């Protein structure tokens, strides 16, 4: 339990409705204002994700700051095709992110499979098959402005509290876990004994 939750409980016992409402507003503001991104760049869209955070488009203006470590981030930006082989790793990285967390599906591949919907045997048709996606951005790939607009939409949703962790958690639980997939990524005959140190990142 975070420190602030305890403070909140204490305030609630004191019956400070006005204080709590103001604190809530402040909390929503801060959460919406600093949506740090975990750039889950798997394919083509990663290029536009990089473009969005660099000189011309400058994601940092909006307070969105890409961090390579899932533990420090708030929103996972799924940029690119997710394959069946990649799926468990994506889910694992999502699980490593601390609550409250959100998911932005960037590009048609993560929305529905996009151009890789038909005839292929290895592509996941939409990230919402195993992740609770909050904002969908179509395009193949979407322009950096579209991605920034998507993050601004997410900010509005966060501030309106329509994406409260509890509600999201219900959606998350309803999804099948990719660890139950029929196959794993582990080498049955690894090059030498012992594998897998650290996390998936």
């Amino acid at each position: 339990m975070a420190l602030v939750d305890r403070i909140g409980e204490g305030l609630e016992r004191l019956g400070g409705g006005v204080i709590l409402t103001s604190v809530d507003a402040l909390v929503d503001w801060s959460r919406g204002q600093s949506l740090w991104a975990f750039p889950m760049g798997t394919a083509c869209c990663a290029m536009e994700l990089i473009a969005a955070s660099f000189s011309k488009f400058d994601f940092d203006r909006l307070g969105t700051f890409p961090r390579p470590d899932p533990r420090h981030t708030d929103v996972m930006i799924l940029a690119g095709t997710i394959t069946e082989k990649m799926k468990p790793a994506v889910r694992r990285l999502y699980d490593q992110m601390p609550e409250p967390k959100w998911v932005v599906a960037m590009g048609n591949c993560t929305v529905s499979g996009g151009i890789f919907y038909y005839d292929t045997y290895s592509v996941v048709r939409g990230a919402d098959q195993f992740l609770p996606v909050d904002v969908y951005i179509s395009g193949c790939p979407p322009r950096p402005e579209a991605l920034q607009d998507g993050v601004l939409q997410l900010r509005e949703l966060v501030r309106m509290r329509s994406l409260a962790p509890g509600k999201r958690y219900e959606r998350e639980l309803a999804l099948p876990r990719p660890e139950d997939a029929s196959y794993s990524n582990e080498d049955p005959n690894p090059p030498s004994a012992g594998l897998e140190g650290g996390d998936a990142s």
Partner: protein
Amino acid sequence: MTQDEMTALIARIRTHNADLYPLFSLEFGDAVVGVAPEELSSTACDLREAGFDRLTMVTAVDRGETFELVYRLHSRSLTASIFVKTVVRRDDPHIASVYDVWPAANWQEREVFDLFGIVFDGHPDLRRILMPYDYEGHPLRRDFEHPNIIRRPDYI
């Protein structure tokens, strides 16, 4: 390298390997030699000595009863390219690896093994490369079926 020189080179390799026979024709500019699968190793060594020091591509084509294996070689000294084609039976897909001749075959043969299920004998590290290690089936075979495939409606 002119057409005549190329034909002469192929003729030289043919005399060297008695059983070598032209399975495929010369087409679209690149010379093609067909070899029997059991002759692949010796042909590869001969071609390597003839100056073909680069293996550009290894791939396979599913021809129903057989798999057609395609090797593309290139020589900087001769400034020539050559296709080497051979066939392996579908029910016994075994072929000698050319890793010893051109190390470039390492990953490319792994890929063919992964996607077609053709076993390269003598390959040092024949594991799946693109698909997960415990995947079942070989996706690029024409008869590959997987519950994950949605067929595209035919509206061309």
